[in-house]
């Protein structure tokens, strides 16, 4: 159950592109053609699905405060979390380099059309973001980390698919010349992001309980006094050290 929940949450509510604005560079630059977009999207899913669980293992057994406990009780005191950035990035860069070599071997045409953006997956903030979110949200198990990686990847894939499809359509409409290409893509992405905010509302809205109305009367008297108190405290803060 929690797998399904996390999966859909990472695709729609926490969508990498539209909710956290990660992975924008390659998203904007490689979305011209549907075919290239699908290729890059698939690569991102793959890299996220591999790096998030890998980095989860790294974090759990090497980097976290006290994570070295499995080596023996004398290692409990070590906290290597200052290394997490560089370790995560090293894992990611290794995976990306691997993907680059594989794609170059099996699909030279895709390799050529991805151009500079293939190595840039390594700094695609969506990938590092995935690992850092995994760390800061304290995802409890390896399985969930995998679900999270795949989910975020699919979310990114859907986003680039959608914009690529829109851009292919736009080719037949008369956009002002100066806005053609990149300009209109930026603006459409902005509008799509506003649309995606409605998913965010699904979580934050509706948890307000409509109770505690009847108590209002009792509290009105207090109000004045407390405001006065508060101003006094603020004033005190400002005039200190005199």
């Amino acid at each position, binding site marked *: 159950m929690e797998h399904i929940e996390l999966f859909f949450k990472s695709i729609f509510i926490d969508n990498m592109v539209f909710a956290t604005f990660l992975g924008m560079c390659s998203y904007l630059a490689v979305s011209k053609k549907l075919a290239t977009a699908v290729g890059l999207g698939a690569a991102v899913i793959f890299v996220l699905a591999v790096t998030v669980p890998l980095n989860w293992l790294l974090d759990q057994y090497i980097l976290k405060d006290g994570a070295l406990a499995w080596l023996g009780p004398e290692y409990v005191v070590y906290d290597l979390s200052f290394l997490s950035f560089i370790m995560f990035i090293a894992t990611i860069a290794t995976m990306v380099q691997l993907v680059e070599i594989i794609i170059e071997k099996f699909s030279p045409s895709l390799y050529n059309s991805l151009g500079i953006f293939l190595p840039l997956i390594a700094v695609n903030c969506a990938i590092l973001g995935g690992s850092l979110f995994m760390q800061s949200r304290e995802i409890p198990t390896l399985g969930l980390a995998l679900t999270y990686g795949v989910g975020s990847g699919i979310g990114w894939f859907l986003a680039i698919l959608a914009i690529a499809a829109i851009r292919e359509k736009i080719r037949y409409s008369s956009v*002002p010349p*100066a806005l053609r290409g990149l*300009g209109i893509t930026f603006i459409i992405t902005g509008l799509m992001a506003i649309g995606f905010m409605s998913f965010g509302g699904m979580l934050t809205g509706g948890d307000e309980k409509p109770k505690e109305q009847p108590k209002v009367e009792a509290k009105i008297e207090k109000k004045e006094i407390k405001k006065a108190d508060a101003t006094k405290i603020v004033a005190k803060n400002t005039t200190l050290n005199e």
Partner: protein
Amino acid sequence: MALLSKKDAALLTDPLTDNNPITVQVLGICSALAITAELKASIVMAISVMAVLGVGNVVISLLRNIIPSKIRIIVQLVIVAALVIIVDLILKAFSYELSKTLSVFVGLIITNCIIMGRFEAFALGNGPWKSFLDGLGNSAGYGIILIIVGFFRELLGSGTLLGFKVLGDPIEKTGLYAFGYENNGFMLLSPMALIVVGIIIWVQRSKNKTLIEEN
């Protein structure tokens, strides 16, 4: 500019307009969206990127002949991450206040694709002096866009510039607010940064027709 040959000067000035990293090369967008809600953060980010890209480009350029091509991505990332982390540690030890302001940017700098992008596209194939100029030029071009976006988002979104209330006080209803003007809180949200950049691109390409793309 007498110091610089014409070619070298172009390395500095091209990225400001015709080959701008954000509006033309599409690099470094994430950070441009994330931190431009405030003008001050935009300026800090612009300066930090300039320092990192300038130094990083030189280092990569010096090492360009000994880096094995198979693992160049890892090498590049490790070098830039190590540089940034060391600077962060030194600041933490000797200038804690400053480090608190800057440490938020550490992650954003390491993953900023403008840095990797320039390593890959320029520093790997050119000498240190040229790479240094290229680094400065590109980060300046990046900074200009950041500052423009930050200016409009802070002014229209919170009615302030660098924290100063230039349009009056929205709560006390002074200045512009006395006439019924309201801040547009929407400007503070990231989607609006995309739209502002879109408009900048529109303005830029209306002036410079050579940049106009086919659909």
